[in-house]
């Protein structure tokens, strides 16, 4: 099948076949196309390797202000010689008649011995027929001439004189057909279009890439038998810390890590039995005076565990798989690896069969579904689980093991005061870290910059 060409391309090719070397201006004349059409046509043909564009530059000369004056009135030295034609003249008279060019004309004439001068008078010595430069001056006149059209020897004198000659550098493009274009077949059909040409970009409306990861993770949890629960981002310290066995004087509760809400205090934080038993557990195990006002302080949840534990305390299930997913907050300096607000997911398994190995198995399945197969488990510490493990996953790009989700069994010091009798296994962690791996980002802030350049270009499935 013959290649399809745009009408513009066809006209240019035909014109170049007739006259193989043309400038764009010449093509405009020969094809009757507009300068813009010619420009585009040449660009397309160049991309298809059908046209060659050679660029060259030449100098073009025209007369400057003094050159034009000399063209009209004669060179200053010619004018001087003309005045002396009829015999010697007084210097003062010549000065008056020649004005500003008197000096330069005298200088040149004396240097070349055309004149003789005594103290008062000037007379001709020998008057040449043609003065240097005169021919060129006439040749150029009001025109612009290129180097090749001018006697360069004659020009050089003029070039050294101020504002006689203006030199312009002109770039010219010359277009020729490439070998492959010389015998190409130009179809006559008019309905065809160039299906190989580039087309403009359109931007796809889409969900946010981080939201895609969140939705993907939510779906995996559901597939693994977990049901989603929702809860508030603002929580009392009781559910964010106390119920999770974090002592009130613990450094983790301090302002530097936790966002406390200014002058916000919860009136009702739990049932009186919950409050009594949690406080007793703290007093007994941590040996300090538990203060209910501390537990009332409202915070932005530092983990979704506050939602999970509240749900478990309310429902006290014998058997359950639930998860909560949402924003959590840390009072940290924002950097390429830290945000003050990020997403976390946390699943819990309640039941008599719930064991650490089972939880490890669920996690292995989870990672497999997000495309991570190389994982291992290391022991770690969380204040509210015992034993506690963390998952390490191998990142091929970084060539190292990185920490992802944490997991563990809720401590009896957490569950017992809240009346939860069955073992509760929990696992979860930050979602942005997974999304960063997925979208190959090095700066976590990109997720919340809403930079259209990125949102319009990030690939959905990676």
């Amino acid at each position, binding site marked *: 099948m013959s290649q399809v060409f745009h009408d513009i391309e066809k006209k240019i090719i035909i014109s170049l076949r007739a006259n193989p070397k043309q400038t764009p201006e010449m093509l405009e004349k020969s094809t009757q196309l507009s300068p813009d059409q010619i420009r585009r046509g040449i660009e397309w043909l160049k991309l298809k390797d059908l046209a060659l564009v050679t660029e060259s530059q030449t100098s073009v000369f025209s007369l400057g202000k003094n050159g034009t004056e000399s063209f009209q009135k004669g060179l200053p030295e010619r004018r001087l010689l003309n005045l002396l034609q009829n015999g010697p003249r007084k210097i003062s008279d010549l000065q008056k008649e020649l004005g500003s060019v008197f000096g330069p004309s005298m200088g040149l004439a004396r240097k070349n011995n055309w004149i003789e001068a005594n103290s008062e008078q000037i007379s001709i010595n020998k008057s040449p027929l043609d003065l240097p430069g005169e021919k060129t001056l006439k040749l150029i006149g009001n025109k612009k001439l290129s180097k090749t059209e001018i006697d360069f020897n004659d020009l050089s004198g003029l070039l050294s004189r101020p504002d006689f000659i203006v030199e312009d550098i002109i770039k010219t493009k010359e277009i020729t057909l490439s070998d492959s274009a010389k015998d190409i077949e130009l179809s006559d059909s008019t309905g065809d279009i160039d299906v190989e040409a580039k087309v403009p970009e359109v931007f796809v*409306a889409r*969900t*946010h890439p981080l*939201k895609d990861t969140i939705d993907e993770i939510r779906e995996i*949890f559901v*597939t*693994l*038998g*977990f*049901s*989603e629960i*929702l809860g508030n981002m*603002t929580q009392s310290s009781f559910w964010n810390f106390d119920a999770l066995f974090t002592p009130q*004087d613990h*450094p983790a509760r301090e302002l*530097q890590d936790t*966002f406390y*809400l200014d002058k*916000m205090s919860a*009136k009702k934080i739990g049932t009186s039995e919950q409050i009594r038993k949690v406080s007793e557990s703290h007093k007994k*195990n941590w*040996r*300090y005076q538990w203060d209910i006002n501390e537990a009332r302080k409202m915070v*932005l949840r530092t983990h979704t565990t506050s939602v999970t534990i509240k749900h478990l305390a309310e429902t006290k299930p014998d058997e*359950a*798989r639930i998860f909560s997913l949402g*924003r959590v*907050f840390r*009072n940290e300096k*924002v950097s390429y690896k830290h945000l*003050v*607000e990020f997403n976390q997911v946390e699943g819990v398994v309640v039941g*008599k*069969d719930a*064991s*650490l*190995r*089972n939880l*490890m*198995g669920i996690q*292995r399945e989870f990672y497999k579904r997000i495309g991570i197969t190389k994982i291992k*488990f*290391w*022991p*770690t*510490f969380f204040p509210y689980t*015992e*034993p506690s*493990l963390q998952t*390490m996953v191998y990142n091929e790009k970084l060539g190292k093991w990185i920490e992802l989700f944490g997991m563990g*069994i809720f*401590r*009896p*010091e957490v569950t017992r005061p809240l009346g939860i009798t069955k073992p509760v296994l929990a696992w979860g962690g930050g979602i942005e870290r997974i999304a960063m791996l997925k979208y190959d980002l090095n700066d976590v802030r990109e*997720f*919340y910059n*809403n930079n*259209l350049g990125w*949102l*319009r270009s990030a690939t959905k499935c990676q």
Partner: protein
Amino acid sequence: MPVVELSYTRLQKLVGKVTKKQISDSLPFLGLDIESENKDSVRIEYSPNRPDYSTDFGIALGLQGLLGVKTGIIKLNIKKSNQYLISVKPAVTKIRPFVTGIVAKNGTVDDKTIKQLMAMQEDLHFGIGRKRKKSSIGIHDLDKIQFPLVYTTTNRNHKFIPLNSEKEITVSEILSTTDVGKDYGSLLGQSSQVPIILDKNQNTVSFPPIINAAITTVTTKTRNLFVEVTGLNKDDAEDMLSVVATILQTAGFTLESVNISGMKNSSPKLESKKISVNSSLINQSLGLNLNSSKIISSLKKSRLDAISKGTNIICTIPSYRFDIFGPMDLVEEVALGYGIHNLEPTLSPSQTIGNTNPVSVKLKSLDQTMIGLGYLEALNSSLTSKRVLYEMTNRIPSTIISVLDSKSQEHTILRDSILPGLLENLSRNIHESYPQKMFETGTVFQYDDPISEKINFSGISAHKDANFTEIKSMLQSALKIGFGIKIETKTVIHPTFEDGHCATVILNGKTIGLIGKINSKTIENYKIRIPVVGFEVSLSDSIL
């Protein structure tokens, strides 16, 4: 997480016959994260519940267990001595009532050991010491101290040469001029009396919980040490002491007892405790089927002792392991000794059926509808600033919910509206091609004794022909297709929107939001150079 820097050669010497590789492979399975490695030195992160891992001596004990070089409990051998006496005066009772201590003799400390001991001290202060409030520690050169000592109080004009200083200054000066004084002075409150430990010749040994005296400074020439811990409660003080005693004994010192008396104080015993755990709890929790002898050998690898009695395992726990509260902590010790890498994951079929929350389902379908309408989803922080939320949109705040001491100026208050964030997004994308259409659904916060959280839905469209009709058509279709509801609009005036191009959005007679053309003042504030229309409606009460 605290960090400690170790040397492999030193660790190898302390652990016994093991290779460098065995050590580096085993560290993570003690719960120690390798932060970085450089030839012989390795920086590791340890958990705050294991202050014994703040020195290489403590880590070596753990490695010996895990690698099977030496297993079982580390017994403290404390020689009874009557040489060292501390008497406690009634004046301290109301300020810092307890003191405890121990003597460690005939050891050597090199620069590295001193550095580690200092680091351990700081970690103990931070963790179980709760920033020195609950308990604090002082390690001294024993030979510079004349016993008996007295733990009493003194006034703020009391003078001595504090650590790292050359001249005598008063307690008040210490509190107002030194770093530690400024950091921890508040622990002493306004009381005119402060705690002090004085020796036989009335020389100051320590001014707890702030600073030691310079004279007792530990150097590489020190051979004998005196350790004192003061605190608000006896058990916490002794817990802290037990960590230091264990480390010093491991470092080659011989421990001798200190006699303490007065005001409910007594000599520390640093005795081990016994906790019983049923082997079925262990096996059920881990998903294993270990017999008693395997459980016992695993516990021993975790440097504990245990015997079996029927199905129960009776475990002996040294005093420095005060992170062990009860049976579940022993389950973890079994898991660690057994080796986490030996736990094979299993996947048992789920007995439950998973469900997405109905709210999430509805929001997701709204997302799909908006995409169909050509809108791109944006995500903004719920924690934002007064500038974005109010100043730029000319809105007057009612009750602002702010966070205390935010480290970032851009994140100081909770949003009560989503639209300002989207406008901010437009202002950061003025170099990108138009039309720009974005939407966001998310939580907004309102004061409601204390706070109510609602889900709002907002969208904006920016291009040269953007107008009210366009955005109303869009919202009308989105809510009709998304939720099968029909909205009406009624004219209103709002500081963010242009007069005559702004309306409330009404659903079943109830106002649920605002819609209109953003006025030129707001557009200019955001430095946007193209017309913008937008809306925001609440989904929580009437739609979700």
